[in-house]
């Protein structure tokens, strides 16, 4: 009967404090008396990452610049190499042996180098203009991305005439708007 009383007491305590059995309430822990504090004091700002002192939470444009440029160079070289391979295979159909191999390599290398340098210089101009725009405006948001995309297109085609420059800036605005839509959907919900 002692055991039964003990069990009854346990059942009573578990029904009175049923919430602590299923999920913990802050300030009360049945495991250890040393855990009786509110864990919310440990992370007052609610951030999910640990940052060293003085570092901002988002990386600046200048730090992202090398990654952007490197990614465009590598992507451009892959696209150019594949396109050069396709063109080389179709245009050297009447050659055989090592002459054909050598000329296909020439096509691949030339197209790969051209496309990679073009995409790399677009990325470089975009990063520099983006850094300048965000430095002038003082704040860094998606409008900077779209504006610098437009200005990059304008500058890149500026030596080919006004109409071509405006078309280039339109392509730039379109490309950066697509990028902004894909990556920052939740921040734009307020405007939609």
């Amino acid at each position, binding site marked *: 009967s002692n055991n039964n009383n003990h069990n009854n007491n346990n059942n009573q305590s578990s029904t009175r404090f049923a919430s602590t059995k299923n999920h913990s309430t802050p300030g009360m822990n049945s495991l250890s008396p040393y855990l009786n504090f509110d864990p919310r004091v440990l992370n007052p700002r609610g951030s999910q990452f640990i940052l060293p002192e003085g570092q901002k939470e988002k990386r600046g444009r200048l730090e992202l610049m090398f990654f952007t440029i490197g990614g465009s*160079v590598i992507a451009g070289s892959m696209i150019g190499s594949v396109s050069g391979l396709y063109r080389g295979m179709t245009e050297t159909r009447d050659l055989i042996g090592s002459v054909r191999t050598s000329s296909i390599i020439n096509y691949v290398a030339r197209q790969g*180098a051209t496309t990679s340098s073009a995409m790399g210089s677009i990325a470089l101009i975009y990063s520099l203009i983006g850094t300048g725009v965000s430095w002038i405006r003082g704040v860094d948001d998606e409008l900077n991305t779209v504006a610098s995309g437009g200005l990059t297109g304008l500058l890149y085609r500026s*030596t080919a005439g006004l109409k071509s420059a405006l078309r280039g800036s339109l392509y730039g605005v379109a490309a950066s708007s697509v990028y902004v839509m894909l990556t920052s959907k939740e921040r734009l919900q307020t405007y939609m």
Partner: protein
Amino acid sequence: MDREPCPWRIVDDCGGAFALGAIGGTLFHSIKGFRHAPSGQYRRLLGSLEAVKLRAPRVGASFSAWGCIFSLADCSFVYLRKKEDPWNSIMSGALTGAVLQARQGPGAMLGSAVIGGFILAMIEGTGILINRYSQMLMPKPDYEEPPPDLNSGKVDLSMPPLFNSSSGQSTSGNYS
């Protein structure tokens, strides 16, 4: 040093080398195009602009190829040897020089590998010397820390004799 971990370091180095080559090539070829253009300020400016548009991306592309292959070789050596060394950089420089001259035949590859390894050895050696001499020349702190007090924080636990000391009874006063 806050460099990225190894797979992303390759993209970073490629982009850094391209930026270096493109900006350096812009400055160099703008001056060269300015000087080689026919006389007249407007034509000289146009000439420098044309030279920049034509030549600077090529310089950037060759720099970025060098940087990408160097970083790829460096990360591969770190992964294979499982340690970070100056020897990794030297071997990567040699391998990069060799790969970039691969179409010219084995003799050119060997010569380019020797040059690349030599340049990287110079760079790494300078880095090591700078590290060593900057440690020697660092100012010593002008205060010495006080010798640690081994008795700080201790509490005197000696108890006064609770009982009259008589033989046959253990005295607590013996504990100090």
